[in-house]
């Protein structure tokens, strides 16, 4: 087990290195620096040149890459050209929000997706099956930002059930401990703050959940259909076990194996979903930050983020494998 972890982490290093080169070569083909981003139409050519000189952006590529690697080695992701603050700080500042959102989305996706998938499979061809299958297909086919707009238009603007933007109402000044608004409230006992944060989470989370939900429903359905036909389920039935035992111990425990893997991969994809979702709901997470980084060419942030993502992606897969080896004894052996 431990060996697996270590091996994976070692594998990570070349991945990240390769990635860094890739990104660097990419991004440095882009024109400009921070100057015009800061000064807007007030930036004259001379000023841009001077600022780039100041930042050493006029030096040859390999020197810049050297500096870049050195920074990375010092775990210094550089400074955001948008905000003039260290990228690392920007991330640590905003990442909790996105994590909170992603977790919420995943909870929705799993809590709804797995039961739905199971029921769909058990009532194959029934209206529930039809409904959830079409539903999940639409969930995959609807552009996330459009869904976000509609949800917002209906539930926030028209009905006013949910807020349209942000993580917390402006008048609630909750004490910030972990950066996870909901959690903080619970820790400090400011339950109104937690609730408020929760209410703010609903729409973005539902939006973000749409795709993973759809995938999970379909995976669960397919895999339940497969398992139900297995001999050991027949055996269990032949023992006259209660329904819930057959369902839980014999069908689900096997059917969920592939779903676990899927969940892992989906978590990665959530982060790119967050870019859209957060910018529609101006949810103060890393997603909306990245969106502006994209349009403003904030390379340090983009590079940092992509490295960061790669890291997370690998870690998640690692976790998945560990989880897998926990629930599937056959893996544990070799």
């Amino acid at each position, binding site marked *: 087990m431990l060996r697996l972890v270590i091996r994976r982490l070692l594998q990570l290093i070349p991945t990240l290195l390769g990635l860094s080169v890739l990104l660097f070569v990419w991004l440095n083909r882009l024109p400009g620096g921070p100057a015009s981003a800061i000064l807007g139409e007030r930036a004259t050519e001379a000023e841009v040149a001077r600022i780039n000189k100041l930042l050493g952006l006029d030096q040859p590529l390999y020197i810049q890459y050297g500096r870049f690697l050195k920074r990375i080695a010092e775990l210094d992701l550089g400074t955001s050209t948008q905000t003039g603050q260290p990228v690392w700080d920007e991330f640590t500042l905003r990442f909790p929000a996105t994590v909170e959102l992603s977790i919420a989305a995943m909870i929705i996706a799993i809590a709804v997706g797995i039961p739905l998938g199971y029921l769909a499979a058990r009532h194959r061809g029934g209206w529930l099956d039809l409904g959830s299958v079409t539903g999940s297909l639409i969930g995959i086919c609807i552009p996330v930002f459009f869904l976000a707009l509609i949800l917002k238009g209906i539930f926030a603007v028209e009905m006013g059930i949910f807020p349209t933007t942000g993580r917390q109402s402006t008048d609630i000044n909750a004490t910030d401990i972990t950066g996870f608004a909901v959690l903080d409230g619970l820790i400090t006992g400011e339950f109104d703050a937690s609730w408020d944060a929760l209410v703010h989470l609903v729409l973005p989370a539902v939006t973000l959940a749409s795709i993973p939900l759809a995938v999970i429903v379909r995976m669960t359905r397919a895999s339940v259909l497969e398992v139900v036909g297995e001999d*050991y389920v*027949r*055996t269990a*039935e*032949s*023992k006259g*076990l209660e329904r819930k035992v057959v369902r839980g111990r014999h069908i689900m425990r096997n059917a969920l194996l592939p779903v676990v893997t899927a969940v892992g991969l989906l978590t990665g994809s959530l982060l790119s979903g967050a870019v859209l979702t957060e910018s529609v709901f101006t949810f103060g997470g890393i997603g909306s930050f990245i969106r502006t980084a994209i349009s403003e060419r904030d390379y340090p942030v983009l590079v940092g983020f992509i490295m960061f993502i790669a890291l997370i992606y690998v870690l998640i897969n690692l976790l998945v494998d560990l989880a897998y080896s926990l*629930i599937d*004894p056959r893996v544990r052996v070799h």
Partner: protein
Amino acid sequence: MALLSVDELSVTFGGVHGRKESTAVDGVSFDVDQGQVVGLVGESGCGKSVTSLALMGLLPGKGVKLGGRADFDGNNLLTMSQRELREMRGKEIAMIFQDPLSSLNPVVPIGVQVTEILQRHRGLKGEPARKEAAHLLDRVGIPDPTRRLKEYPHQLSGGMRQRALIAMAVACAPRLLIADEPTTALDVTIQAQILELLKELVDEEGTALLMITHDLGVVAGLCDQVNVLYAGKVVESADRHELFAHPMHPYAHGLLESIPRLDAPRGEPLKPIRGSINDRIAWADGCAFAPRCDYYTIECLTGTPALTVPAAAGHQVRCVNPVREPVEIATLETPDVTATAHGGTSA
């Protein structure tokens, strides 16, 4: 009266959204008495497994039509509610399946798979359940049972797995045990052991056993009464000695003849049955076996032949012109299981 009496049981698949119907079991009748071992013999596809599943109520609800009745001391299994069946299964009637590996849940320890049935039907929990489970494994001849309880199916050998399955089947001392090709997936030597084990269990407990197999060797070794199935109908039914002595239906006759004989002179060819179960005609038009039959005459094509009792009492045959001459079988008297276990491979 019989413990289980199956009467004109028929199972029909399909009919739902456009798929054409197909009758797998077509009016099968037989009885199983207390402590009796009854064989259900036929090539794969003749409907024997379907029969067993029908009795257990394990056939899918949708797209399956059941006909006739199957009374298990008095009450009809076919009309029972799922809840009643759940009560019955594993407790009154237990089943052993063909492929031990796929029949065991790969991600649940053997122990749990045994104890769960104890908990269900005998209300045993925790330590006592575990003790009992260990005892059961021990009884079916699994060495070092307490350790095995913690292990997973893939860690056991084929034979062990089948033993474990048997342990589960007999856990609640059912009155009827249905074994569906319990040995087919195992190596020859193991096959013999498993059969021995079954034999013991049945003798000790007085459990009735419905042995479903294509393997006449198994039948010879185990069964008191034998029913030969072809294309969903019983074509011959007799007690073991009678059948092995005078198989009257050409199919049964063929089956027996096709067993390789240890004492057969070298070079003498085997006598397999022509064709396969697929070249058949509908029972309604005549004898389904006719296309493969050596004795087939035009009379065979005048409607479904009736089950008649041409010779010895209790020896029924569904044939217009039954075979008269006996087959010589090396293993007619007191057949030695191990010798014949690897015998019949006709299907």
